[in-house]
Every structure is written in C-alpha cells, then in structure tokens.
C-alpha cells in the first residue's frame, strides 16, 4: 500500500505508513494536514513503516511537529537524515519583495514622471543620433547600409500593399455609399467627387494607412529589436564594432519614411477607385465624369499634403518603434509591455500630429 497515512496504535502511539512523497501526498493533503495538526506532539511517533520520504513529505512532517523533534520518536537513520536536511535548510527566510504602501504610491508617481522625462530625452537623443549618422554617411558613400534599407523597404512597403489596398478599397466603397445616400436627398450628387477626393487624399488615406502601418510594421520593428536584445544579438553586433544605429535603426527609419508616401499614394488611389465603383453602381456616375471633375474640384496641394503627412507619420512610427525596441530588457514581460507601448504611442502620436497639422494648414489646398 503506497497511500500515505497516519494510523493510531491501541497503545496511544502513532504509526506513519505509505509513501510520503509529493505525488502520493497531493490527493490526500487536506486530510493529512488536518490529522497532523490535531495529533499532540507528545504522542509516540513511529516512522518505521514509511516506504519513501521526499523533501516535501519531510517538510510536511517537520511543520506538523511545529519545527521541533518529538520526544518520543522511532525513526531510521536514513529518514532522520532526510528530515534533518530539510529542517536545517527550509527555515531560511527568503528576502521578500518590498511591501506596497503609501510611500510606494509616491515612488511610483515619481518614477512615472521621471521616466516620462527620461524617455523624452532618450527619444530626442535617438533622433539626434540618426541625424549624426546621416551626416556621417554624407561624406562616406561606401558606408551606406543600402541592402538593409532596401530589405526594410520591401518589408514595410511592398509587403504592406495588399492589405493597404483591401482596407483602402473597402473604406472608399463605404464612404462613397453613405455620402451618396445623403447627397441624393439634396440632389447634390455631383458633390460626391469633392467629398471623396478631399476626404481621402487629404485625411483618410494618410491616417488610415498610418494606423495600419503602426500596427503592422511598428510592432514588428519593436519586437525584432527586443528579441535581438533577449538573444544578445545586439551585444554581438556591438562587440563587432558595428554601429547599432547605423545598421539597424537608420535603415528602418529611412525605409519607412520613404515608403509611406508611396503607400499613401497607393492606398488613396485604391480608396478612390472603391468610391468610384460604388458611385457608378449606386448613382450611375460615369468613370469619365469622376476622372474629369476630380482634378477640378480637389486642388493638387492636397496630394502634396497627403504625401507629406505620409512621410511624417512614417518617420514618427519608425522612431517610436526603435525607441521602445531599445528599451526592452532581456525578459518576455518587458518585450510585451514595450511592444504594446510602441503601437499605442505611435497611433496616438499620429492622430495628435494629424490634428496639429490640420489646424496649421487649414487655409491651404481648400477648394474655393
């Protein structure tokens, strides 16, 4: 019989039997704990029938004895040695993490504030470092990380085209469909081209795409840098004397800054196509009319604004991604937290900056 158990002798003694191991004890733990707690320590303990005792069993017994050897004990030397070892070593108090109190709240507030400023400084430093790298490269054309830039361009630009097109097309269709329904009430169907053209080229195209890219490429950049930190690849690069910012960060930032305007062009074009198709089906507006009136009602400045915003958003997303990627400490928790922070910060920044730009250039590119 392996089941661990306490048996009471007729003469008042106590016999422990069975396998007192973690695996055998676990199913009967509640009962055994209760029995150990009720048995007076002065009883006569016979540990002669224990088949196996591991450190958990020994610890359980020792705690049952309230950390003292019982006076009346019959035990083999072997078992005594096991219990002695556990008794000596399991009592060591492990240091506890500092408890949380009022002071803790203050400390946390302070840490948040300080870390905000530190992050601001880090962010500016990163930006400055990239500029220095650029100046460095101006005089040394052979040092340009062209392969890295091109690989990043492919990853963040070319590979994002299908999903950008899908999102753009559907948004164009929905926007066109909903606006057309309203415009028809006033008999102002021709204004649909104004709404779609201005809305998509100036606002929706760049912003939608920036949100998409922040989630897609920004998170990937942060996670990549983080995993390279965890696996010590960043240290390996540094040890080889290879500049981190020149080979890893600058290509990412340049590639996204260059790719975003092109992606904006692509997304806006597909969104307009979606709107055009929807207008044709719903209002019977001919493609030729759409094409002809678009340049007349939407000043070309809007196109430049859209492209410019794309470049700014791309720069922001890549900078934020690199900033948080470098903050990752070598553990999974930090990886997750910083990847989240990267995406959330990038999206928030994009929307904030977009609002600022909208206010700043409200007089430019509006149809008369």
């Amino acid at each position: 019989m392996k089941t661990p158990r306490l048996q009471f002798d007729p003469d008042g003694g106590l016999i422990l039997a069975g396998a007192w191991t973690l695996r055998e004890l676990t199913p009967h733990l509640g009962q055994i704990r209760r029995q150990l707690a009720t048995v007076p320590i002065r009883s006569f303990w016979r540990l002669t029938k224990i088949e196996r005792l591991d450190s958990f069993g020994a610890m359980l017994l020792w705690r049952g004895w309230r950390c003292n050897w019982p006076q009346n004990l019959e035990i083999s030397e072997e078992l005594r040695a096991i219990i002695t070892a556990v008794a000596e070593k399991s009592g060591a108090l492990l240091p506890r993490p500092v408890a949380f109190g009022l002071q803790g709240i203050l400390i946390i507030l302070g840490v948040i504030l300080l870390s905000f400023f530190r992050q601001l400084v880090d962010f500016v430093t990163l930006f400055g470092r990239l500029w220095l790298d650029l100046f460095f490269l101006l005089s040394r054309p052979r040092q340009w990380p062209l392969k890295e830039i091109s690989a990043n361009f492919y990853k963040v630009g070319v590979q994002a085209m299908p999903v950008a097109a899908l999102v753009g097309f559907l948004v164009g269709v929905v926007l066109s469909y909903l606006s057309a329904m309203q415009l028809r009430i006033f008999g102002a169907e021709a204004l649909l081209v104004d709404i779609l053209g201005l809305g998509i080229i100036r606002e929706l195209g760049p912003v939608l795409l920036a949100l998409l890219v922040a989630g897609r490429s920004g998170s990937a950049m942060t996670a990549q840098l983080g995993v390279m930190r965890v696996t010590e690849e960043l240290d390996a690069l540094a040890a080889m004397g290879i500049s981190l910012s020149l080979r890893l960060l600058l290509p990412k930032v340049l590639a996204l800054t260059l790719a975003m305007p092109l992606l904006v062009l692509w997304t806006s074009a597909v969104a307009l196509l979606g709107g055009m198709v929807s207008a044709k089906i719903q209002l019977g507006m001919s493609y030729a009319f759409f094409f002809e009136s678009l340049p007349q009602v939407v000043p070309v400045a809007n196109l430049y604004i859209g492209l410019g915003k794309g470049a700014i958003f791309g720069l922001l997303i890549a900078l934020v991604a690199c900033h948080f990627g470098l903050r990752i400490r070598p553990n999974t928790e930090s990886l997750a937290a910083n990847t989240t922070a990267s995406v959330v910060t990038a999206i928030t920044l994009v929307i904030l900056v977009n609002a600022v730009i909208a206010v700043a250039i409200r007089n430019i590119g509006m149809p008369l």
Partner: protein
Amino acid sequence: MNPKKVVALRGLISRFGDNLVLNGVDLDIMADDIVALVGGSGSGKTTLLRHIIGLHRPAAGEVFLFGEPLFAGNYLEQQVRRRRFGVLFQQGALFSAFNVRDNIAFPLRELKALEEEEIQALVAYKLAMVELEPEHALLMPAQLSGGMSRRVALARALALEPELLLLDEPTAGLDPDRSTSFVALVRRLHRQLGITVVLVTHDVSTLLALAGRVAVLADRRIVSAVSLEETMKLDHPFIQSFFQLFSKRG
C-alpha cells in the same frame, strides 16, 4: 513492460524534413541508473531527449516512460506522467519574467494543492540543495551567471520531486571547476533522492566524474550502453576518437 524500466525506446526513428536524425534507437534505462548520453555535436542527443519527454513525436518506433507508452491516456493522465520527470534544458529555459524564487515555485503552485508557506519552505530547501544563497531568490534570470542559472534550472527541475531527471549538457560553458562540482551535485542528488538521471554531454571530464553507464549515440543509433570502462575498450571509430584525448592525458 517491466515497471523497473524507467525509459524504454524501441526502434525510434526521427527526422526533420529530409534530415534523418535518429534511425532505430533502442535504449533501456533502469530505475536508479545514472546514464550519460554522449555523442558528437549535432548527433541528435537533444533530439533524443526531446523524444523521451514527448516534445517530438517519433516518425516510427515507440517510447515507454515508467512502463507505459508515452502518449497513452487522456490529458490528466499525461500530466501526471509529465510531473514524474524533471528536465534541465540546454539553455536553462528559466522563465525570464519571473525571479528565481517564482521560477522554482511555479511548478509547485501549478499543483494547486500546496499552501504558500509550504511552497516558500520548499523553495528555500531547493535553493540550499543546489548550493545557492537565499539572497539570490529575488534575482531575475538575466542577472544570473551561467553557472547560477544552471543551478536554478536544476532546482526548478527538482521542484516536483521527480523520479527521472533529464539534463541536457548541464556543464557546457562552465569552467572545469564548476562543471566538476555540478556533476558532484548531480551525483549526490542521485544518491540521496534515488533519482534516475540521464545526462547528455560531449565533455569527457563530465563523463569521468559521473561514473555511471555510458550510452553512445553515433551513426544515428545507440551503439553501446555499458559501463565507462567497458565503453572505453570498444572498437568504434567515434568512441576511439572521443576518448583519445583522455587516454593521451592518462
């Protein structure tokens, strides 16, 4: 199956795509054995270990653990079987988001039967067992040296009082002193707790310090599994070259 056989491999075949790594491995490991699995780098030692603990499914052949087929039974039965062995992975595989204490306490907490005080006592005991100080309990894995994180990983592998302990190159990357003391630690645990130990190594000094049975993995199969002295007498090109260094020195 004889219940005294802790591990039994029968005609195990393992491949990654076209890469045939193990081709018909037969191996028996008895209770109370201490077995060193040796083989060249890339010969499939880690792969063999991963088959024993069920991380890979064999392309053909069978794995028996504690006398039962490895994948027999439902989820709970398999979980019980998995709790009977402890593994020390080649890279340690400590949970990087937990400190040392929580790494060791994690498998104990997962039992959902122990009280927090009991867990703390057990963690303190396991730390002492692998010769670490209580102050180390709050360190994060990234703050540990190679030897220390090996010890913490060993303590975690021992947390559930396993009957079988699998160690994948526990001494690789340790200096000779540390690696000898690590092997001594493993031997002591083997003797005290009666644990069956399988230790992967390609390090001759570890092998000599361990003094158990030696299973040699070469040509994609186990070519011998006998005591160290007998192994050294065998006439096999891999074994010859493996022990050459030692015999020159000796």
